[in-house]
């Protein structure tokens, strides 16, 4: 389980991106992190795996304090946290298989990875994951030949092959069309359930978040202003997070879509 204690990030420019964020996410729970652009959503998940160094506070995953680890121990800890990115962040000139196998880099030595001689068990797992997301036939294609939705699936495989206990997901659907967005969200949530993974999903689309997650956290100028179930997101709450706007349409749409999804 993940525990954040008073996590704070002040950038060199003096901007306070996160202020005193404290929350805990139990094993296997999928959480949506919503909030306006610049609220600190990306900073929050990057502070967890320390792609961004937090200024103060701590992030503790499975009783290990990530914030104080040296670089070697940090690398070992990063294997436990899979990350999925907004613009897929695949290495475009590498093949799909190389991209998926790069999720094992924390486990294999430099020469093995340099010669692309990954252990057979890793290769098998990569094939299994690609098959699970329906991209087995694409294994030897270059990543930049795939469509957006396909690329994000490869990104999901890369995160899952790490065998993580936590997924950090940064705007997974921001560059996808509405249908693909839903498919990707559904896939992420299904895989989390299958593997008992906890996940923090940054997401702009409130309606989409409500459809798939069990808990929503609202962030506004670096502070947690809402923490509750998806049905508790009332127009008042959305106004508090995003500011004044007519929210009825957004919420109503969710209910419609929910029924449609069930049907």
């Amino acid at each position: 389980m993940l525990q954040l204690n008073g996590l704070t990030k002040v950038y060199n420019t003096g901007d306070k991106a996160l202020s005193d964020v404290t929350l805990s996410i139990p094993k296997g729970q999928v959480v949506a992190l919503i909030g306006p652009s610049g609220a600190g959503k990306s900073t929050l998940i990057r502070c967890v795996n320390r792609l961004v160094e937090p200024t103060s506070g701590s992030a503790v995953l499975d009783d290990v304090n990530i914030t104080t680890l040296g670089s070697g121990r940090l690398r070992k800890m990063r294997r436990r946290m899979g990350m999925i990115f907004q613009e897929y962040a695949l290495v475009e000139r590498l093949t799909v298989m190389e991209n998926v196998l790069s999720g094992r880099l924390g486990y294999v030595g430099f020469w093995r990875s340099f010669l692309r001689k990954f252990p057979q068990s890793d290769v098998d797992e990569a094939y299994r994951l690609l098959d699970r997301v329906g991209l087995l036939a694409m294994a030897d294609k270059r990543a930049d030949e795939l469509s957006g939705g396909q690329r994000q699936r490869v990104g999901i495989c890369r995160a899952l092959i790490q065998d993580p206990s936590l997924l950090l997901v940064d705007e997974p659907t921001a560059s996808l069309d509405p249908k693909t967005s839903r498919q990707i969200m559904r896939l992420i949530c299904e895989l989390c359930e299958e593997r008992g993974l906890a996940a923090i999903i940054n997401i702009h689309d409130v309606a989409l978040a409500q459809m798939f997650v069990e808990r929503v956290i609202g962030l506004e100028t670096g502070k947690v202003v809402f923490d509750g179930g998806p049905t508790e997101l009332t127009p008042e709450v959305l106004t508090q997070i995003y500011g004044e706007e007519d929210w009825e349409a957004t919420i109503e749409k969710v209910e419609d879509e929910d029924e449609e999804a069930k049907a």
Partner: protein
Amino acid sequence: MSVALDSKLGTAWKKPPFISSRRVRIGFLIVALLYLFLATLGTKGLANWLAVFGIVEEGFKFGRIDRFFSGIDVNWSRIERGLARGMQFIEGFMNPDFTSRLDDIKQGMYESVVMTVASTVVGIGISIPIALGAARNIAPLPVYLFCRFVITVSRALNELIVAIILVAILGFGPLAGFITLSFATIGFLAKLLAEEIEDMNKVQAEAVQSTGASWLQRINFGVQPQVMPRLIGLSMYRLDINFRESAVLGLVGAGGIGATLNTAFDRYEFGTVAAILLIIIATVMVLEYLSGIIRARIK
């Protein structure tokens, strides 16, 4: 309609000028034109010119400012003599003589090719680690400063100067040329490769890093694929430059086809000179064609 909009409608729009003050702008223009005029004319010319109007006496000297406006003297009688020599040269080109010094040309070309290939390979080998160190987004500050220093030294010292020093140390021959070109390759390739690395897509490398990859693995998986086409293109271009430079370095005794060329000049064998120049041109064209094919294949 707002008042702000009302006052704008119907007025012409112009791109805001780079220098906002009109006076300064026109002042700069006048000073620049005046300098250009004086520099080409020279103070001597200016004095003569002013003397025509009776403003100064014949033979007037401007004193100290002469240094800034010495002008570009044109010596017409020298040009007349030179033209005849130029004609000789061009005649030589009409009759390139490949045969009478064939052995010398072969030997020179052989040296040049070896020098070029060896210095390019060694130069690239040294450039890659230096380029990694000189990219601010992947190297720590002390390493960055050191690598940038190496690059700057290599770029500041012109090939000819390095070659002259090395010929003095190592004696005549292609060894001096080889070391000179390897050294020059570092300044060129490491600088451009480092800039390519700094311009790369950051998230791709970040994604590799987030899996728990080590620094070397991050370079191999996250950086190398992004910069490889550029590295290959630059290497081909450097091969081309090194070959052309090898022809110049021969003039200061650093071996290669340049040495053969120099000898041919000294003997006034313009036919042989022409033959050598044609060979150099042909080789550069072949290299250009090859690099075109290679670059088209890696995209």
